[in-house]
C-alpha cells in the first residue's frame, strides 16, 4: 500500500522527474530496486552460506588424506548424538544461555523503566549514553576484566572478605561465566526493553489508575504486556550471544561450550564437517526460540 498520491501531472520534464514519475506508477519496479540489492546480499551470501553449512554437516573428512570428501551420510550427527560429551556440552550451553537471558531481563527492566518512564529528559539521555557506551568498549577486554575481578586476589574476593564473608573463589567456574555473560550482553537487553516501555502511551497508565488499578495491577495488566515484545527481543540477544560464544570460556574458566567444540574442530582437529554438524545444534535451539518469539510479536520491537 503505497501512501503517496498519483503523479501530479506537472509539465516539468527532466530525467529525475520522469524516473520519479515512472517509479510512482510502477511501485513493483521501485520495490525491486530498493529491496533487490539487500535481498541479493542476504539471500546469496548469507542464506547460501547457511545452505553450505548444512550440506557440509553431511560430508566427512578422509582419515588418510585429511581432506573433505563429499560422501553423504549421517555419521557426524550419529557421533554427536551417541557421544555423552557432546550432549553434556549442549545441555550446559543452553542452560547457561537461559540463565543469562533471565538474569539480564531482571537487571535491564528497572533501568529501562526508570529511563523510559520516570527520568527527566536529560537524565534519560544520560542513561541511554551510559548503556550504549559499554557496547563500544572492547568485548574482549570487558571479558578480561572479569578474569582480574574473579581471580583469587581480585576485586570480588577482596569485597567479599571486606564484608566478612569467606573468599568466593568463583574464578574459572561457571558462576564467573554466568556473571560475565550477564554483564556483557546487558546493554543489548536494556535497549529493546526501553524501546518497548517508551512506546506505552501515558494515557494508558492514567486510564489504568483512573479505573482504580494500583501500581502492581497497572504493571501486570498494562506495562508488562506491552513490554513483552521488548523483553523477548532482548532475551533473544542475550540467549543467542551466549549460545554463539567461544571466546569467554577460553579466557575465563575452563568449561567448554558448544562454540569451543566447533572452533577446536575447525582449527586444531581440522574436522570442518563435524564442526558444521555441531553448528546446526544452536541453529535448532535458537530456531525454536525465534519461532516462539515471533508468535509473541517480538520482531516489531527489535
Amino acid at each position, binding site marked *: *500500500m*503505497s501512501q*503517496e*498520491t498519483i503523479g501530479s501531472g506537472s509539465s516539468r520534464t527532466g530525467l*529525475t*522527474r520522469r524516473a*520519479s514519475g515512472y517509479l510512482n506508477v510502477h511501485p513493483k519496479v521501485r*520495490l525491486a530496486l*530498493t*529491496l533487490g*540489492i539487500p*535481498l541479493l546480499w*542476504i539471500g546469496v*551470501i*548469507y542464506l*547460501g552460506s*547457511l545452505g*553450505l553449512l548444512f*550440506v557440509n554437516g553431511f560430508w566427512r573428512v578422509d582419515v588418510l588424506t585429511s581432506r573433505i570428501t563429499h560422501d553423504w551420510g549421517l555419521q557426524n550427527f550419529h557421533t554427536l548424538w551417541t557421544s555423552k560429551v557432546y550432549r553434556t556440552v549442549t545441555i550446559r550451553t543452553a542452560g547457561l544461555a537461559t540463565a543469562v537471558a533471565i538474569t539480564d531481563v531482571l*537487571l*535491564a527492566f*528497572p*533501568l529501562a523503566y*526508570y529511563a523510559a518512564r*520516570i527520568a527527566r529528559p536529560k537524565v534519560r539521555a544520560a542513561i*541511554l*549514553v*551510559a548503556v550504549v557506551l*559499554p557496547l*563500544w*568498549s572492547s*568485548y*574482549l*577486554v*570487558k571479558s578480561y576484566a*572479569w578474569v*582480574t*575481578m574473579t581471580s583469587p586476589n*581480585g*576485586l570480588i574476593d*577482596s569485597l567479599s572478605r571486606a564484608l566478612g564473608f569467606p573468599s568466593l573463589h568463583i574464578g574459572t567456574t561457571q558462576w564467573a561465566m554466568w556473571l560475565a555473560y550477564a554483564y556483557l550482553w*546487558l546493554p543489548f537487553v536494556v535497549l529493546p526493553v526501553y*524501546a518497548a516501555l517508551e512506546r506505552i502511551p501515558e494515557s494508558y*497508565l492514567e486510564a489504568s489508575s483512573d479505573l482504580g488499578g494500583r*501500581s502492581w495491577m497497572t504493571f501486570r495488566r498494562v506495562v508488562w504486556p506491552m513490554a513483552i515484545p521488548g523483553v523477548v527481543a532482548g532475551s533473544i540477544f542475550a540467549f543467542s*550471544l551466549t549460545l*554463539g*560464544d*567461544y*571466546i569467554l570460556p577460553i*579466557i575465563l574458566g575452563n568449561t567448554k561450550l558448544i*562454540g569451543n567444540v*566447533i*572452533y577446536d574442530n*575447525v582449527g586444531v582437529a581440522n574436522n570442518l564437517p563435524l564442526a558444521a554438524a555441531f*553448528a546446526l545444534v*544452536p*541453529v535448532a535451539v*535458537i530456531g525454536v526460540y525465534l519461532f516462539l518469539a515471533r508468535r509473541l510479536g517480538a*520482531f516489531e520491537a527489535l
Partner: protein
Amino acid sequence: MRYRGGAIAIRLASGFVLAFLYIPLAVVFLYAFNGSVAQGWPPKDFTTKWFSLAWSDPTMREALANSVKIGLAASFVAVVLGSLAAFAMHRFRFFGRETVSFALVLPIALPGIVTGMALRSAMSTTGVTFSIWTIMIGHATFCVVVVFNNVIARLRRTSGSIVEASMDLGADGWQTFRFVTLPSISTALVAGALLAFALSFDEIIVTNFLSGAETTLPKWIFNAIRLPHNRPVANAVALIVILLSVIPVYLAQRLANQGEVDRTPTVR
C-alpha cells in the same frame, strides 16, 4: 506520583545496574596504569609506560589499521543495504514480507558461531582465499540489520502526512526523498552507521573464522591477553579504544536528540 514507593525502588535498582555496567570498565581503566605485570587487587603503583609500549608496537598499528578499514567498509555496505531494505519494508506490503524481515534479522539472531561457521563453510567449499575483504563481507552481513532497525524505526515514527504534503505541493518522488524523507531519517542513518562500525570494530567471533594471517584489533588483544606479560599493554590499548568511542557516541546521542525535538507531536 503514582508509584512513589516503587519509584524509589526502581531508582535504587537502576543505580545498582549502572554500577554493575561500569565497575568492570573502571577496573580496566585502573589496570591500564598498573605498575606491575601481576594483576592483584588493588594495584599498588602506577605508570604510563604501557601506552608508549603499545603505540610503538607495529603489529598493534597494523591491526588497528585493518580494523578501521574493515569497519568503514562494512558500515558503508550496511548503510546502503540496510536503508534500502528499510524503505522497501516500510513502504510496501508484499507477499513474503514477513520472511524477508526474518531473513534480515537472522545473521544477528543466530549465534555468532553459526554465522562464522556458515561463512567459513562457504569459503572453504568455494575455495575463496582469506583476506580483510572476507572479514568485511562477514561483518557487513550482520551489520545490515542494525542500520535497518534504526532506519525503519525512524520511518515508522515520522508522520506519513509530511510525505503526502510534499507530493501534494508538486514535489516528485526524488525531491520528496531528498528534501523530506532524507532529512527526517539522517540522524537514524548516522546512528545506524555508528552502531555498525562499533559492531565490526569489536567483532572477533566471526572474524576468527574468516581470517588467515590478517589481524584485527580484537584478534591482537585476544592474543595479547593470553600471554600474561602482554596483558598490561592490552589493557592500555583497550583503554584507548574505550576513550576514542566516547566522542562518536556522544555525537550520535546529540544527533538523535535533535531528531526528537523536531519530531511532529502527532506521531503514533
